[in-house]
């Protein structure tokens, strides 16, 4: 259940973040490449009273996220969309429903039928449906399922002017899929009990850290965590990975059902640190600005992988041009601003910076030469985890 990609959508913590996406999108679309982010904190707690304010470039409220949204191509400068589109979305409705509805509302002749299920389930559904699949676009939470679909020859290559909107490491070399937003693996830590220097910069060093004994959290059944262990398996080999898992179990790591709950637990001081995707930390901070919660990164190893959510045109698409142009819209200034400010992911087009207390993409140190699509091969990873007694 937790490996369902839809659960990437925000976690099962007991707190939820109030946002007003419709309002945001209305303002985001109102001006070129602009989002009205009047006071991110109030905005996210649903108390934003600035909906009527005329959004203008650079005109932003409280300082934390400031003038981050800039650059990119507006939807208005993109080809019009007309016709019917069925989108198989492995990204949760709570996260991207408003964005898709916004695009649909923008064009009177566009009819979008979104279908929200887990990314892996949708890939299997497309394969089972064969050439009779109604899917036009597959919108996935990770590169792995996109790569899998491409390997099964079920994708239609995207035009190069769409894939070229993102850096080459974030799209398939043959153009079968393109990343639309990014997520980095991070170490959230409690700033009251630890300082940044207490967090190793080498992921393999964690089991030896006595200061972290009985005070870390992980979510082994969670898809992104399994991708991270898979990266370790690819980079460091099975034996080292098994030892690492066993070492963490021996260190007394606490098990959580998802990573949002870990970020909350770190903020509350229940544990001192954990393993999560970067945006969960930002979601907690958006809700509680003063939380003693900060982000640490490891360097150049499995602990620092940068995966992407992305989209592909399915080979059964009735109108491949329309489908490709929809994907293009996911890389528009508005959509990228939406990902940055609403889902707290890394925008992938140049010039749109992440929101919050995060380094830019260029400042991250993901492992070199790791093929993101390989990270879907969690099969042997599940075995390793089971071998050390973790239920997945």
């Amino acid at each position, binding site marked *: 259940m937790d490996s369902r990609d839809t*659960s990437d959508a925000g976690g*099962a913590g007991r707190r939820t*973040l109030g946002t007003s996406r419709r309002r945001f999108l209305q303002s985001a679309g109102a001006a070129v490449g602009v989002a009205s982010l009047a006071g991110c904190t109030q905005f996210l707690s649903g108390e934003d009273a600035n909906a009527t304010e005329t959004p203008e470039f650079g005109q932003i409220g409280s300082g934390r996220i400031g003038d981050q949204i800039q650059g990119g191509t507006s939807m208005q400068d993109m080809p019009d969309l007309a016709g019917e589109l069925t989108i198989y979305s492995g990204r949760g409705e709570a996260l991207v429903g408003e964005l898709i509805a916004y695009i649909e509302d923008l064009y009177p002749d566009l009819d979008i039928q979104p279908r929200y299920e887990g990314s892996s389930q949708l890939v299997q559904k497309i394969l089972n449906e064969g050439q009779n699949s109604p899917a036009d676009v597959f919108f996935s939470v990770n590169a792995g399922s996109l790569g899998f679909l491409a390997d099964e020859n079920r994708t239609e290559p995207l035009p190069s002017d769409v894939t070229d909107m993102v850096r080459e490491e974030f799209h398939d070399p043959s153009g079968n899929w393109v990343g639309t937003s990014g997520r980095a693996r991070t170490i959230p830590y409690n700033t009251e009990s630890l300082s940044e220097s207490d967090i190793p910069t080498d992921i393999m060093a964690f089991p030896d850290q006595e200061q972290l004994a009985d005070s870390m959290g992980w979510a082994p059944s969670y898809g992104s965590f399994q991708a991270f262990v898979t990266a370790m398996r690819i980079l460091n080999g099975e034996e080292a990975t098994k030892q690492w898992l066993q070492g963490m179990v021996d260190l007394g790591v606490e098990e959580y059902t998802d990573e949002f709950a870990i970020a909350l637990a770190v903020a509350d001081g229940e544990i001192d640190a954990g393993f999560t995707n970067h945006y969960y930390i930002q979601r907690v901070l958006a809700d509680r600005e003063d939380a003693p919660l900060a982000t640490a990164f490891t360097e150049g190893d499995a602990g620092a992988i940068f995966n992407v959510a992305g989209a592909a045109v399915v080979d059964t698409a009735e109108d491949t041009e329309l489908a490709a142009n929809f994907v293009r819209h996911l890389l528009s200034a508005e959509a990228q601003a939406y990902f940055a400010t609403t889902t707290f992911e890394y925008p992938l087009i140049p010039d749109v910076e992440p929101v919050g207390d995060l380094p830019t993409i260029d400042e991250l140190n993901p492992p070199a030469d790791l093929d993101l699509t390989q990270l879907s091969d969690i099969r042997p990873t599940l075995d390793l985890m089971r071998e050390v007694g973790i239920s997945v």
Partner: protein
Amino acid sequence: MAPETDSLFPSSQRGESSLPLGLTLLSGAIAAAVVFPLVWILANALEVGGTTALDLLTRETTLRVFLNSTLLVAVVTAASIVIAVPLAYLTVRTNLPFKRFWTVALSMPLVVPSYIGAFAFVSAFGPRGELQSLLAPLGIEQLPEIYGFTGAALVMTLYTYPYVFISTRASLKTMDARLVDAARTLKHSRTEAFRRVTIPQIRPAVTAGALLVALYTLSDFGTPAIMRFDVFTKVIYAEQNSLSTFGQDLAALLSLQLVVVTFVILAIESRVRGSDTISTSGTSTRGALVHLGAWKWPALALCLGVAGLALVVPVGILTAWLIRGGSESAAASLAFQWEYAFNSVGVSAVAALVAGLAGLPIAYLAVRHRSRASWLIERASYVGYAVPGVVMGLALVYFGARYGGQFYQQELILFPLLIFAYVVRFLPQAVGSTRAGFLQVSPTLSDAARTLGRSPVAAFREVTLPLVAPGLLGGALLVFLTTMKELPATLLLRPTGFKTLVTHIWSAQASGHFGHAAIPALVLVVVSALSMLVMLAMEGYDVK
């Protein structure tokens, strides 16, 4: 067999009469249709090469999963019987105070989807859960572990024992209580009378309920997933998500193993059930009620404990989510709409109707024309019940897309496929209940109608059917209830844009917007509770 289990109608000649061809063909066709999706699973499993298969099946994971699953099924089934039979006895045969209330309250857990129950128990009793937070000021740092086998078994038992409770109650109500009184006058102790007279009489009903519990436990995915206990469904799901050939192979083989376990359970039930009792229709006689005396208090405590745990925990947690979720403006697309409730009720009603009709000939044949063929047909109708919804859903997607052509593209066959999936999965509930109905109608009644010049069909319609109707309706209501709660097949097969209460609960829950999950969950519980009340009003399977 002990003499008291013999039918009251001495060896009816009907048992040996030759099978009516039309009816047999019809029932056979229904059973074949129901077993059909298994062909896909079989084909998938057989594609795995022999050595690979052997290798996969003897792996540590596979063995552990097999042991875990069988252990869970055994414990949940046993625990359900241990809880449900005394409760049924208390609410029917004793002077327990507020019997009516307890009957309703103790049946109600059936309307709570077990995954909501599991979530509620984790929220309440898990580490850092609600209860722990409440107790924290008292210095209680940790509660006993809820995850794993204990939690899974506890939650599964609490939400499935009503299958045994309801069927046992019906049987206790219709059995001729004068037999017990007779045994008592023959100087048997109360326990002795219970063992010698009551147990054999209620045994078919208890095993029928236990069979539903066992098969439900085997097929449920949500509870073990939430409780982090590796069973067939959970590992099949994880392996299917791994998107590798190896994982697919393992998933297929585990599904196959799951089907084999199902057959074993069916065989065991067939053994234990023994020969059926047929009671005289409409003349069940109440014996004297057992006076509890001082035992009243422990009896009340048992009722309160079971109903309280199973109902108060989820309703309390849902209400807490509802109150806390009040300020959520998040995810407007997750706002509740009544349409979801109408959709749920709509497909569930159709599924109940179809399952009721499909179960009728099978049940009739199984009771009135006992033979190897009718036995096989009846057993076959149970197999789909244990197949996990995900496996069933994917199999039907495959068939629909391959052979549905344009109809699939235009989603015209998705509703029929969805209904078919429900019928395949829940037909046994209809068959079991209708079968019990037929058992209580004496064949001599329709014989009498025949001698009065009615055709066989007219005799059936005018005499037998009205008497069987409560059992038929009870079975259909059970299918309705279960369909309302079904998730995985609904997710896979529903037409795009078609949302039901559970698919909505699922997306709200998966994204952590619990406040949005609370309203549909409460609506689901209320609607199901209403249909449960209807069922209880006619006292389940009571012919009267």
